[in-house]
C-alpha cells in the first residue's frame, strides 16, 4: 500500500495533476461516497433536520456532495488549493444545474436515496421538489494549526481520509501531537465528530485516540471489517457526552458485500447494521465481583465466550456450568 503522507505535506502532494486524477477516478469516488455515507450514519444526526456540518480535509468536495444529497449544509476546509479549485468547480457546476432545469441524473440519485432510507422519505422529496442546492463553502486552511472558527459553531464534523496526514512531521516544527490536539473545540454541545483515517500502524491509531481523549472527547475508534485488508476502515467517533460509547464496527460478510456493491449501483445496504441499535445496548464489562462471593454464572459464561472468540479450547456450556457447590464444613 503506498502512502502519500510519507512524501511530504498534503498541499505539495495534491497538486493540480493529482487533484484531477483523484477527482476523476471512479474508484476513489466510490470509496469516498461509501465512507461518507457510513460516517453520516455514525453521526446519528437528528433525522429530517438539515444540519450544519464541518468537513475537515474536504479535498475536491466528494464528501460534501454526499452531505448535500442528505440535505445538510457544509463548510469544507483543506490545505491543498488545487483540490479546493476542483471543489469550487463542482459547486459552480451544481449551481448552474440548479439554475437551469432539474438534471435527470440528480433526480435518479434522489430516488435511490429514498429507497434506501424510508424514514427520510418526506424530507428528501421536499428537497427534490424545491430544487434545493445548498452547496458548501470552502476554506483554504491547514487543520494542523487549529481551525479558524469560533467555539460551538457546528452541529457535527466529519473528516474523510485526512487525519493520517497529521501523523507525520515533515519539518522540525511540526510535532504530530501538537497538530492533532489543535483541531477541536468547534462543535456545538452534544455534537459528534466522525473522522475516518488510515493509520499506518496501531501506534498511530493509539496516538490519535490519546490526543482526542486529552482534549476531552469521549468515544473511540470503530473499525469496520477488521478482517479484511482492503475494506478495513478506521473511524474515530467522538462526542462531548462523557457517557458516550463508540458504536460497534461492522464485521464479517458485509465486507465482501461492500466491495461488490460498490461496483454496482449506489452500494448495498445491509439490514443488520443499524447504528442506533448498536449503540442502544451498552456493552458493560463483566459484573463486579461481590465481596466474599465467588464468580457468578454470568461472569463464567462471559469469560468462556471471550476465550472461545480468541480461539482457545473451552469446555462447552452445560447445565453444570457455574453451578452452586455444596457447603463444606
Amino acid at each position, binding site marked *: 500500500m503506498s502512502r502519500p503522507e510519507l512524501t511530504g505535506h498534503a498541499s505539495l502532494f495534491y497538486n493540480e495533476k493529482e487533484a484531477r486524477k483523484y477527482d476523476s477516478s471512479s474508484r476513489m469516488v466510490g470509496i469516498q461516497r461509501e465512507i461518507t455515507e457510513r460516517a453520516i450514519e455514525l453521526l446519528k444526526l437528528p433525522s429530517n433536520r438539515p444540519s450544519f456540518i464541518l468537513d475537515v480535509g474536504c479535498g475536491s468536495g466528494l464528501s460534501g456532495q454526499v452531505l448535500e444529497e442528505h440535505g445538510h449544509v457544509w463548510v469544507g476546509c483543506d490545505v491543498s488549493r488545487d483540490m479546493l479549485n476542483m471543489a*469550487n468547480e463542482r459547486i459552480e457546476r451544481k449551481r448552474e444545474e440548479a439554475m437551469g432545469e432539474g438534471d435527470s441524473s440528480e433526480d435518479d440519485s434522489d430516488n435511490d436515496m429514498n429507497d434506501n432510507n424510508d424514514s427520510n422519505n418526506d424530507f428528501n422529496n421536499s428537497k427534490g421538489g424545491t430544487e434545493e442546492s*445548498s452547496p458548501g*463553502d470552502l476554506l483554504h486552511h*491547514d487543520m494542523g494549526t487549529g*481551525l479558524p472558527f469560533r467555539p460551538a459553531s457546528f452541529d457535527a464534523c466529519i473528516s474523510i481520509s485526512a487525519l493520517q496526514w497529521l501523523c507525520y512531521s515533515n519539518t522540525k516544527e511540526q510535532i504530530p501531537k501538537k497538530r492533532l490536539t489543535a483541531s477541536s473545540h468547534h462543535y456545538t454541545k452534544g455534537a459528534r465528530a466522525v473522522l475516518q483515517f488510515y493509520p499506518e500502524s496501531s501506534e498511530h491509531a493509539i496516538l490519535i485516540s490519546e490526543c482526542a481523549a486529552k482534549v476531552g472527547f469521549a468515544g473511540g475508534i470503530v473499525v469496520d471489517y477488521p478482517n479484511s485488508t482492503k475494506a478495513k476502515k478506521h473511524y474515530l467517533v467522538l462526542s462531548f457526552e462523557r457517557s458516550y460509547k463508540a458504536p460497534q464496527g461492522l464485521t464479517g460478510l458485509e465486507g465482501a458485500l461492500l466491495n461488490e456493491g460498490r461496483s454496482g449501483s449506489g452500494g448495498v445496504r445491509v439490514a443488520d447494521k443499524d447504528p442506533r441499535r448498536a449503540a442502544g445496548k451498552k456493552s458493560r464489562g463483566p459484573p463486579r465481583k461481590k465481596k466474599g462471593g465467588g464468580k457468578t454464572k454470568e461472569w463464567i459464561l462471559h469469560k468462556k465466550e471471550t476465550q472461545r472468540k480468541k480461539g482457545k479450547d473451552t469446555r462447552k456450556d452445560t447445565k453444570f456450568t457455574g453451578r452452586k457447590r455444596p457447603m463444606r464444613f
Partner: protein
Amino acid sequence: MRLLTHNFLQSNVRGTEKGYPLNIEVTTIKYEESPVDKEFLLNLLPKVNYNALVAAVKQMSPHCEQPLPELPETMDVSNAEQNQNLDDATISNLHKVLFDVYLVEGWLICPDTGRKFPVKECIPNMILHEDEI
C-alpha cells in the same frame, strides 16, 4: 464565501485574544438567489452572532449592486422558541444576507492584529505562516 461562513470564522493568529468578528474589505461581490430553507435557518439562528452579522452586512452593502435588505440594529436570536414567531419577511431577509451574498475577492482582517487573510474565487485563505501558529 457566504456571510454564513464569515459569521463563524475567527482569526487564530498567535497573539489574538478574540479575533472575532473579522472585518471585510471588499473587491468583488456576487449575489445569487437561492430558495429559502426556513427549517434550517431556524436551526441555525441561535448559533449566529447577530451583531457580527449586522456589522458584516454594513461592510458589504456599499459594494453590492442590489441593495441588501435592511436588518434591525439589534435582535435577540439566541432563543430558538422565540425565533419560531419570526415573520416570513424577516426570515427571508436573514436568508438573503446569510446565504445569497458571496464575497468573491477581497480581504478578511483580524480586528486584533490587523493580519489580512486574502479571499480569492470565494475561497478565503486562512493558512498561517510558521511564526504565527
